[in-house]
């Protein structure tokens, strides 16, 4: 079963109404089960869960100390990732620059060698 068919099967197994499913199925047909589509669909399902809590009168947990701590930890980890990405990008750019310089040098040398060989013969 391909990804698209799997999404259809997963959606049909949920408690979503036909009205709620229909726009997603339409989008799936148009853009395919891309990463972006899957991310947005997951977020939509989370919204439905949150709405269910709201309907039951369960308060938001934004101010819950446990959640705030989890949030803080996530932010710290994301900052580490950001730093790593910046370092890796700088490293890759430097490597490209160096290789480009080396290639120019090697090419010049190859041409000079060839010229010298042609003169000698």
């Amino acid at each position: 079963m391909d990804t698209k068919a799997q999404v259809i099967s997963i959606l049909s197994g949920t408690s979503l109404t036909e009205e709620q499913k229909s726009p997603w199925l339409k989008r799936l047909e148009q853009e395919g089960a891309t990463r972006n589509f899957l991310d947005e669909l997951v977020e939509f399902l989370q919204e439905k869960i949150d709405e269910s809590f709201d309907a039951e009168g369960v308060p938001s947990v934004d101010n819950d100390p446990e959640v705030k701590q989890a949030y803080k930890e996530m932010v710290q980890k994301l900052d580490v990732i950001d730093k790593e990405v910046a370092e890796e990008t700088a490293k890759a750019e430097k490597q490209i620059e160096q290789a480009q310089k080396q290639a120019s040098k090697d090419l010049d040398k190859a041409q000079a060698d060839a010229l010298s060989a042609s003169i000698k013969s």
Partner: protein
Amino acid sequence: MGFFKKVFGGEGPKNGPRPIDRAPEFDALLAEEGVNQMESSPKGGASAPEAKETPRLSLREIGQQRKEQTKGAVSKAASRVGERLGGFFGFMKKAGSATVDYSLAMATSAEPYKRAASATAEGAKVFGEALKFMATEVAPEAGRRALEGTKSAGKAVGRGTAEVAKTVGRGLKEAGTFALVEASMPVLKGAAHTVDFLEGRVQDCRNLYGAFRNKMDARRERIAEEKRAAEYQRLQSEANASDTRMEQMRQQMEVEMQKRQGLREAMAQLEALEPQPEPEEQMGAMAA
């Protein structure tokens, strides 16, 4: 500017901010992170009625936004590296084609060698004719030997010249290709590593946010359970609470809980799927 400030500076959430009440501790947490400025200033001056309502983001929305922005930063870095790599490979392609052109030029310059070879052969022929004359007419034995020797010498010179031309051309081509391959290898290896690295970081962002979202969700489910238990107890303590009413309430809550569980399972299944390529990736693959 810190990353957090950089990330939160300016843009609002995708679907517009949702006004909610925020506890002072949360404001303190945001202040600690340096994001006080994220609250958009009310437009129309302080006297405008809407000025009193400051749009606020829920923790979940902030988390989502933060994840998106980090993911965006990672993608941007990937595309920056991609552009640089594209530029590099463009350069290498140009350099490669210049080398090939140069090799071709050198191969073409084998023409003088060919001409020399042919002239030598011609010369040998003329000389050979003279020798033949000598051999037949003047000194048969000496002439024959000289003729044989000249023929061989002519052949050798011709063959040697062609060899030199070929060797120079091939040597240059090999030297050029080798230089380019040598220079490209670390970049190719580095690029593969960078792409893996960036993809890994995007996945890390996704996992971190997923874990955070699950924690929030689990916490809310626990609160819902506590609320359900309290409600059930309250109904039980009521003198006129019928068993039917309590059973209805229990069933309704059970159904809601099961629906949420079903949605969570669907979310996990969707997250485990192998996504199809984005349209631009498909076009890129086709172009490649």
